[in-house]
């Protein structure tokens, strides 16, 4: 067993130095398990070998040395070859990456991308900066989608009844169908396609319908991420969809809409939202977000005011809000608002705030909500004068016939040939359709899909499986959320001869020898308009990655109240929810989506942003419901969905397994208690529990589709939860890498910030830790300096401070650049896109569920999610311990990665100098020197170092414990996707964030080469913005800024000069190069539940000055002067 040093408990005085956050209810309560966890550098189990203690291990090792002898395997390195091209390839310079514009299509929108390719292999995706609304950002899923290209489980051949088909046979088959059905005008032919925004597909579907007027074209997506067109059709008399401009909105009301993560265009919206929230100096404008929701979404976690209640009550809430805003409609809406149990004052004050911001506010509703809600919301935005300012309406298409129409046709026996294009209906069709039986009853099924999945397995004998090409292997096109046409450009020939959807459609439409490129060219030529040369227009389109000026033009709309009234069904009484009548809310998983990304290891391993569970989904219940179900912890030991009886308490969440019953349909899954949920709403995430996803996705989580019907696809009432008495282990990273509740995140309300812009300096130890300031400054004199002077002074101090008479020299930072990073916590939405971007850029391996549960995940950057609720009274903080679980916590998220301390604690403990500083301020890791003592991780106060406990890259995750007996080597397909600029780390070495040193070095070299060729070799300083770290580049909200601190005009120097910039754990005198900005909240003083301080600060002030709540600064300063001497 690992020995553990017992740190002395902090003195009462020491406890008074920071605001308290708690990340889990365990931490809050200070359970013995949690306290044990704090004392370790890695969670328990992370550093131990199963069943072998250190002594035994040494014995075994000694024996194997003796047996092996010290023989030399060979003196010369093996012969290797250089394999140049036979014929030179235009534009390819070996060693230099090429970038091509493409786009990732997803349902009815797309993310424009730039793909980095190395000799034809795409290795990394970035947002396309030419598309202004995204500004070069990309989402979590877009970042991860490249891994699907190299998925060994993807469909690798076209098959018919299990027999492989060659390309000619496939063509003959499709041509045959086209010919056979031509006579009957397509009678008996049916299509089931996924949604798409591709103009080429739209054109081909039109052609197909013209050719086969009697064929049925239906579309199905399990998740709706755009507001229903019917609502807009009724409200405005034409098929339009809203396009919100969050940047212009000063007040935002979100009705169950997670517009920052799950709605179509979330990237577009998140960026706009952040622009309206970013504060550079005092008195800058900042938006205010009101959220009413049932689950705790990322949008909810950013809310200034959050109201939680059931999704099935959202119509009542919307009706009530409309009645309060516009009393003239109160009469007609009254029946719909009846029975709503929401504080009246909340709605009134929220409405007053909206009315005070007519034309600069915005109301948005979740796409899953009923059409009535959307109709009212359209009316509200119209009446508040928001149309044309904060929201535009752009043309869209009426929805195609749904899967229900198709199901009826199949049942009627009128479908002889069914072509399934994409999607996975056997897994995700509504349960009441009994899709498997329907599909079996169709004589001929052509299944076009990326995986051999559940749908392929329904009736393999009668199914033709066509392997789909990945979008990085396809020619195609798509539209972004604002309608801009973007190209889908192949980076590589289809690895397994996959087809594109438009090829299949074109062949069925009777086009002889269709070619995807030619099809797209035709579309683009038509879209570019007459007068442009086809090849020029196409070249421009592919170069820019978008068709300039193709964004949809907003149409003038006029709200038509009488038509909307037609839409309303008679009001039904609101369901009274209770333990016996639960509401089930279905949401698409943030990572697996509707199940399509279930086999993506990067997404599976990425912790869910709020629950922090990786590799599984859970049934989320509110603390109140948990108590009623009897799974809440007894006594004062408050825990989240587990009791202390688990063998491994940390990282492994021992979750009770419940059976969720709705209308006779059942599903079993582990229960996780999630504060912030509506009391009687049970949240289930879709996309897990796949049975034929592949090696990664199989067996991850439970499948919630079996209880989801077409009548109530997003929220259903009348459910019960039954305890099965069983438990399941969930890998939860929630408490990993804890930082002991210091003043890590510093928050203030906007009002306080405007009065005291430097509020971050009044926190914690820094306010009275003169050793930070060298001999030259005192706290007072340092605070008097201007921000620019402070940076300078800090740079000076960092060189002066002796390291406690140690033998180590203070590093000389004499490079041409000094790298640093600033993270704006005010806009960070916690979406985790940076986590996966970093993983893709830096060849970070996945480790699997078992290893995550032991705290061995390898992510270099993590998003810490903290809760605070202002009523904290935990044993850990000297109180008697909470008796009830908090229901309404405030959420704060913080990206945490190596902060590149100038006086890094990890460096002085490394016995082999494997981690040292370079002259430009990077804390570097030399992997080939590292011998794996893990002392550095032990000494890292941020807990950001990651150790390769196994050879994650070269061994299979299920054979890790077989050591040398396991198969060695990376599959060639997987190796293709690795970034050649970054070393693949082996077992036994430490790794961590490098500030993307490969990008820094290549950026510097490219700059030097350019300058030398231009005749100005003296110009060695890289211009600001040239080098971006992977996390910075992909951040949807521009929260991360990286650059050269010596350049006073660089974005990072400016960000660091802001008053609210602070160092996390700065009092340790380690001078982190990454600094954070204080988080601001903008609550409305008139709202119920308003507090002058954020919840975390209330706790902070309570602990510091029990007598004087509220007035933070004076009291803290006195505290500071009291302790000023040390």
């Amino acid at each position, binding site marked *: 067993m690992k020995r553990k040093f017992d740190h002395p408990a902090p003195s009462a005085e020491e406890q008074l130095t920071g605001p308290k956050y708690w990340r889990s209810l365990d931490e809050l309560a200070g359970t013995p398990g949690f306290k044990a966890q704090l004392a370790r550098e890695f969670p328990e189990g992370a550093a131990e070998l199963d069943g072998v203690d250190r002594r035994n291990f040494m014995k075994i090792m000694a024996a194997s040395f003796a047996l092996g002898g010290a023989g030399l395997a060979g*003196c*010369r*390195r093996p*012969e*290797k*070859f*250089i*394999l*140049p*091209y*036979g*014929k*030179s390839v235009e534009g390819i*310079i*070996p*060693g*230099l990456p090429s970038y091509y514009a493409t786009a990732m299509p997803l349902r009815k929108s797309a993310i424009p991308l730039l793909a980095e390719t190395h000799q034809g292999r795409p290795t990394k995706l970035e947002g396309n900066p030419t598309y202004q609304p995204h500004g070069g950002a990309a989402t979590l899923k877009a970042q991860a989608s490249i891994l699907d290209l190299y998925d060994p489980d993807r469909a690798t051949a076209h098959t018919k009844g299990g027999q492989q088909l060659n390309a000619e046979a496939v063509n003959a088959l499709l041509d045959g169908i086209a010919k056979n059905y031509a006579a009957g005008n397509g009678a008996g032919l049916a299509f089931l396609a996924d949604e798409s925004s591709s103009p080429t597909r739209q054109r081909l579907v039109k052609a197909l319908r013209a050719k086969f007027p009697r064929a049925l074209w239906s579309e199905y997506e399990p998740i709706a991420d755009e507001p229903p067109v019917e609502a807009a059709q009724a409200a405005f008399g034409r098929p339009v969809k809203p396009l919100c401009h969050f940047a212009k909105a000063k007040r935002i009301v979100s009705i169950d809409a997670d517009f920052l993560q799950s709605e179509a265009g979330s990237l577009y919206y998140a960026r706009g939202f952040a622009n309206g929230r970013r504060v550079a100096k005092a008195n800058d404008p900042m938006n205010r977000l009101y959220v009413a929701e049932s689950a705790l979404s990322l949008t909810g976690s950013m809310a200034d005011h959050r109201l939680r209640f059931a999704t099935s009550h959202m119509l009542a809430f919307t009706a009530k809000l409309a009645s309060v805003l516009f009393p003239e409609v109160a009469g007609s809406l009254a029946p719909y608002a009846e029975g709503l149990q929401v504080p009246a004052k909340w709605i009134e004050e929220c409405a007053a705030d909206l009315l005070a911001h007519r034309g600069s506010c915005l109301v948005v509703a979740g796409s899953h909500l009923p059409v009535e809600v959307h109709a009212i919301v359209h009316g509200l935005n119209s009446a508040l004068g928001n149309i044309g300012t904060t929201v535009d309406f752009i043309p869209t298409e009426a929805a195609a016939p749904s899967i229900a129409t198709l199901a009826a046709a199949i049942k009627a026996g009128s479908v002889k040939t069914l072509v399934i294009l994409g999607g996975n209906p056997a897994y995700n069709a509504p349960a009441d359709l009994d899709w498997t039986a329907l599909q079996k009853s169709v004589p001929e099924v052509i299944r076009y899909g990326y995986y051999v999945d559940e749908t392929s397995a329904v009736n393999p004998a009668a199914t033709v499986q066509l392997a789909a090409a990945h979008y990085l292997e396809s020619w195609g096109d798509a539209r972004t959320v604002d309608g801009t046409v973007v190209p889908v450009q192949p980076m590589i020939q289809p690895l397994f001869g996959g087809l594109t959807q438009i090829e299949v459609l074109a062949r069925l439409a009777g086009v002889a020898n269709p070619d995807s490129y030619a099809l797209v060219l035709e579309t683009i030529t038509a879209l570019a308009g007459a007068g442009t040369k086809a090849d020029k227009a196409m070249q421009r389109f592919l170069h820019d990655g978008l068709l300039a000026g193709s964004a949809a033009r907003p149409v003038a709309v006029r709200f038509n109240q009488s038509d909307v009234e037609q839409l309303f069904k008679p009001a039904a009484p609101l369901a009274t929810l209770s333990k016996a009548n639960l509401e089930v809310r279905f949401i698409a998983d943030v990572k697996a989506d509707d199940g399509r990304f279930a086999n993506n290891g990067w997404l599976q391993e990425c912790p869910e942003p709020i629950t922090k569970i990786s590799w599984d989904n859970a049934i989320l219940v509110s603390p109140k419901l948990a108590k009623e179900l009897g799974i809440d912890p007894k006594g004062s030991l408050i825990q989240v969905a587990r009791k202390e009886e688990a063998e491994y308490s940390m990282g492994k969440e021992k979750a009770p397994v419940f059976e969720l019953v709705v209308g006779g349909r059942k599903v079993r899954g582990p229960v996780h208690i999630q504060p912030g949920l509506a009391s009687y709403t049970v949240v289930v995430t879709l996309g897990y529990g796949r049975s034929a996803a592949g090696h990664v996705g199989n067996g991850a989580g439970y499948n919630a589709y079996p209880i989801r019907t077409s009548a109530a696809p997003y929220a259903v009432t009348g459910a019960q939860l039954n305890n099965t008495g069983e438990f399941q282990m969930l890998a939860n990273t929630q408490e990993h890498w804890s930082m002991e509740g210091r003043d890590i995140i510093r928050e203030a309300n906007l009002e306080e910030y405007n009065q005291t812009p430097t509020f971050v300096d009044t926190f914690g130890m820094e306010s009275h830790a003169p050793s930070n300031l060298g001999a030259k400054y005192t706290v007072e004199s340092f605070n008097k300096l201007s921000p620019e002077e402070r940076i300078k002074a800090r740079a000076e101090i960092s060189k002066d401070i002796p390291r406690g008479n140690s033998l180590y020299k203070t590093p000389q930072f004499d*490079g*041409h650049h000094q790298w640093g990073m600033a993270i704006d916590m005010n806009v960070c939405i916690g979406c985790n896109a940076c986590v996966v971007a970093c993983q893709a850029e830096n060849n970070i391996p996945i480790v699997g569920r078992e290893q995550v549960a032991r705290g061995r995940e390898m992510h270099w950057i993590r998003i810490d999610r903290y809760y605070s609720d202002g009523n904290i009274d935990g044993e850990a903080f000297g109180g008697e311990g909470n008796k009830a679980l908090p229901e309404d916590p405030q959420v704060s998220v913080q990206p945490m990665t190596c902060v590149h301390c100038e006086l890094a604690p990890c460096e002085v403990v490394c016995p082999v100098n494997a981690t*040292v*500083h*370079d*002259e*430009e301020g*990077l804390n*570097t*890791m*030399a*992997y*080939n*020197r590292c011998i794996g003592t893990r002392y550095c991780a032990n000494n890292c106060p941020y807990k950001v170092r990651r150790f390769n406990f196994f050879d994650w890259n070269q061994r299979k995750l299920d054979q890790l414990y077989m050591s040398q007996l396991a198969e060695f080597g990376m599959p060639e397909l997987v190796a293709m996707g690795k970034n050649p*600029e*970054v*070393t*693949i780390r082996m077992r036994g070495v430490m790794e961590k964030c*490098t500030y993307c*040193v*490969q990008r*820094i*070095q*290549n950026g510097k*070299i490219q700059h*030097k*080469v350019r300058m*030398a*060729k231009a005749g100005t*070799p*003296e110009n*060695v300083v890289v211009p600001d913005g040239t080098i971006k770290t992977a996390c910075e580049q992909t951040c949807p909200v521009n929260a991360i800024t990286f650059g050269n601190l010596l350049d006073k005009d660089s974005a990072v120097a400016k960000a660091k000069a802001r008053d609210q910039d602070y160092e996390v754990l700065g009092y340790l005198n380690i001078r982190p190069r990454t600094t954070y900005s204080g988080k601001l909240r903008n609550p409305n003083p008139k709202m119920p539940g308003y507090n002058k301080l954020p919840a975390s600060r209330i706790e902070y002030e309570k602990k510091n000055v029990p007598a004087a709540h509220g007035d933070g600064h004076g009291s803290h300063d006195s505290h500071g002067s009291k302790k000023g001497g040390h």
Partner: protein
Amino acid sequence: MSKIFPKSANKLPLQIVIYLGVLAGIATAGVTYYMTPKYTRVGYAPVQPVPFSHAKHVQEVGLDCRYCHSNVDKSGHSNVPSSQTCMNCHSIIKTTSPLLAPVRESYEKGTPVPWVWIHQTPDYAYFNHAVHVNRGISCVECHGKVNEMDVVKHSQPLSMAFCIECHRAPAERLRDPKDVYNLDSKRLVDQGAEGAKIAEKFHKDWKLMPPQSCSGCHR
């Protein structure tokens, strides 16, 4: 007791110490000589699939390094030419030479000629040609006089010590940028006092500061 240990045994401890010392010395010397890149790498001259002679092509034909290694000043890798580059000339001269059969085959089929890799840096070391040749470091510094080699051989150890030595004193290895690809040119410091002065001036004006920390080469 004296029976067990004869008198001569008194010298034994000293003898053992000396013996071990000598042994350790020999071992150290052996390892230093035989197991470092100076011995294991220098002189490596494998047989190539095509007996290409740099000496002939540079000295007789007068080709510049960059005719074939065309991206050496742009990319981290100095590219080995594609067979197409060879065929620029060899589609006209020596079109039937049996020695060139692999090149012709490669050009026709698009398959690579498997040139044996001589100057290998380890996977964890990232050397960049472009930045060196653009800032006054000639090919000859690492590759030796390739222009005189009929068969290319490894002429320098290319060990970390070799790299660091130069990174510590870059001025001593500098050439005038126009001489970088002239393998017969002299280093500036070898061109008398005037040259040394120019080298120092370049060092200063170009703000040469070759990295001496890990991040320069290891990522």
